[in-house]
């Protein structure tokens, strides 16, 4: 009897732990939506958010040197530091997307910060709560879809360079089989996979992109599994949409496959197989946002709502192509880049078919940015399913 009890207890504990460890997905918080003006009367007399700030705060969800998302944001904060040498720069890494983020932001405000950059998607709701309590502080949130009086969001059309990376990958692949390791099916992710496939397909009509979901933004074990499994099945170019990118790139390099990076330039990890990477160029944008806020011009500026930077704005970029990429491919990518910049090339101009062959974007239609950011399908040529 006794032993049976222990075993049941063990099973229970185990289930509990699995629940705890398995449910650390960000962003389940139900914060109230941004207030829409009930406090306007009080706010209009208050000083402009962020004006005359002597300190600025940055919070990151991960490590500043993850060869990925957080590294890009960190470089942005360095840009602010260099542009404003007298400004006190406060940074906090590994800030979870919970009430803990609120605490960190409150502390930064106590330490004098009048401008705050919450840089992770899931920092939005905590930031909205703090923003409500501090109308004199300006917030710039990365990638958010909700805004407030003193909180604007910024992001970039990263799918433009991803399309160019797809062109390079389509040219470089010998098997015509590309792999894309992604986390969870949010529109940002689907949009990138689609852009990559459309780019590859534009130079190699037979190219396919196998997409694999890992369910996590950074689990090296799963990443290595996925990379090995894709390479085993004949994929020779790997790309990814993960926060930490190192494991996949290194695994590809060791196994002789080529790499397309994301978020940051990781060419040093793959001297042989590096093709290119789509990256964020935050320093100039961050510095400009900081300047706008300090000068008291936050309200009415392009940053007080949803700002989206493009390839033209130099907010998103394609890194230099790798040493192993031949000149004709480099030239082709350059031509396509020029067409994108001119606007003569629109990757998502219809007709665009989804995997089942249904037309999702009508012939001749160029979807608006908002429609693109709501992508809920994978284009023809992508192998894999959107988890329901």
């Amino acid at each position, binding site marked *: 009897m*006794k*032993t*049976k*009890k*222990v*075993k*049941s*207890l*063990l*099973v229970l*504990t*185990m*289930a509990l*732990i*699995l629940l705890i*460890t*398995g449910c650390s997905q960000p962003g389940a918080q139900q914060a109230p939506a941004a207030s829409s003006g009930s406090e306007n009367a009080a706010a209009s007399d208050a000083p402009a958010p962020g004006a005359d700030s002597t300190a600025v705060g940055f919070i990151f969800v991960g*490590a500043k*040197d*993850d*060869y990925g998302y957080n590294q890009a944001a960190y470089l942005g904060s360095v840009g602010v530091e260099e542009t404003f040498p007298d400004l006190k720069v406060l940074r906090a*890494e*590994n800030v979870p997307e919970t009430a803990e983020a609120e605490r960190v932001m409150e502390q930064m405000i106590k330490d004098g910060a009048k401008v705050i950059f919450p840089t992770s998607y899931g920092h939005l709701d905590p930031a909205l709560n703090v923003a409500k309590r501090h109308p004199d502080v300006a917030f710039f949130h990365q990638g958010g879809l909700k805004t407030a009086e003193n909180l604007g969001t910024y992001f970039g059309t990263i799918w433009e360079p991803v399309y160019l990376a797809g062109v390079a990958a389509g040219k470089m692949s010998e098997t015509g089989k590309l792999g894309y390791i992604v986390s969870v099916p949010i529109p940002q992710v689907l949009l990138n996979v689609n852009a990559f496939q459309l780019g590859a397909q534009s130079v190699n009509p037979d190219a396919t992109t*196998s*997409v*694999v*979901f890992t*369910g*996590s933004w*950074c*689990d*090296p*074990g*799963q*990443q*290595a*599994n*996925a990379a*090995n*499994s*894709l390479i*085993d*099945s004949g994929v020779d170019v790997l790309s990814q949409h993960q926060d*930490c990118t*190192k*494991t996949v790139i*290194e*695994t590809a390099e*060791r196994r002789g496959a080529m790499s397309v990076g994301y978020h940051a330039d990781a060419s040093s*990890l793959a001297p042989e197989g590096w093709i290119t990477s789509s990256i964020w160029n935050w320093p100039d944008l961050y510095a400009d946002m900081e300047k706008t806020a300090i000068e008291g011009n936050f309200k009415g500026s392009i940053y007080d709502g949803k700002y989206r930077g493009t390839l033209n704005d130099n907010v998103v970029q394609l890194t230099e192509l790798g040493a192993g990429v031949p000149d004709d491919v480099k030239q082709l990518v350059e031509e396509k880049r020029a067409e994108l910049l001119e606007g003569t090339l629109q990757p998502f101009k219809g007709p665009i078919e989804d995997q089942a062959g249904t037309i999702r974007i009508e012939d001749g239609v160029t979807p608006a940015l908002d429609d693109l950011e709501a992508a809920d399908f994978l284009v023809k040529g992508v*192998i*894999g*399913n959107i*988890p*329901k």
Partner: protein
Amino acid sequence: MITDILTGAIRSGTSVMLASQGELISERAGVINLGTEGSMLGGALGGFAVTVWTGNPWLGTLAGGLCGLLISAIHAFLVLTCHANQLATGLTIMFFAMGVTSFFGRGFVSEQIVGFNPVAIPYLSEIPFVGQVLFNHDPLTYLSFLLVPLLWFVLFRSRIGVILRATGEREEVLFANGINPKLVRYAAVLAGGFLAGVGGVQLSVAFTHSWVENMVQGRGVVAVALVIFASWKPIRAMIGAYLFGAAQALQLTVQQAGLPISPFFLFMVPYLLTLAALYIVERRQRSQTPEALSRVFTGTSSG
């Protein structure tokens, strides 16, 4: 395709397998160590750090094993000397290790190492099918192949094994024979921690060549569950670990085949399999549980 799944099963199952063999030793002596997850984390970081510093993955393996051992030593001390509740202690140590390794691991996230790489064994790796599945792995994986029969032999065919199993079943007998069961338990928990640490090293230095905070992601917990699934038998624990690995590999293969099954359902499969196995074992009723798992020896006669 089957070759790929089986190869993937071994690739992703080995770290779990090493940890479950360690936990098996500990449980055979009557101590449940839920801190196995923590020992794996300690091993993953320690092994990675020493490999960065020395450039030698073998030294890294040793260091990782020792880190795992140190973390399990906390468990052993609290449970065996202070008589703390072993489940609560193990859980606490798991979360403690998550914090400690995240803190000390900060500087290692972007480090690159030359870790263990797959080595194809001459001749054997050329055997069709079997060669591909079994003989194209990293050195730690080969060692883990040898570990299982060795552990089986020690447990069931040697005097040490008799002492160990007696500790987990009838400590009074040992006590009467002049052997201190507490010492045996200490040794078993530490050995278990060492193996879990090496499991962590396999994950960081051999499989992924990376350190990221909390990278073990519940594999240590699965290892503990597998021991029960395996009815405390090394070979079954190995099969269980590979089954877990196979479920992960299958999941990826299914996704790539474009079959209309949600990956999020597939993510559950390894855990569902483990839970189902536990249920079946539980139902079988024929108890193979080391009896001492339900009590803690007090140092005098029976508890």
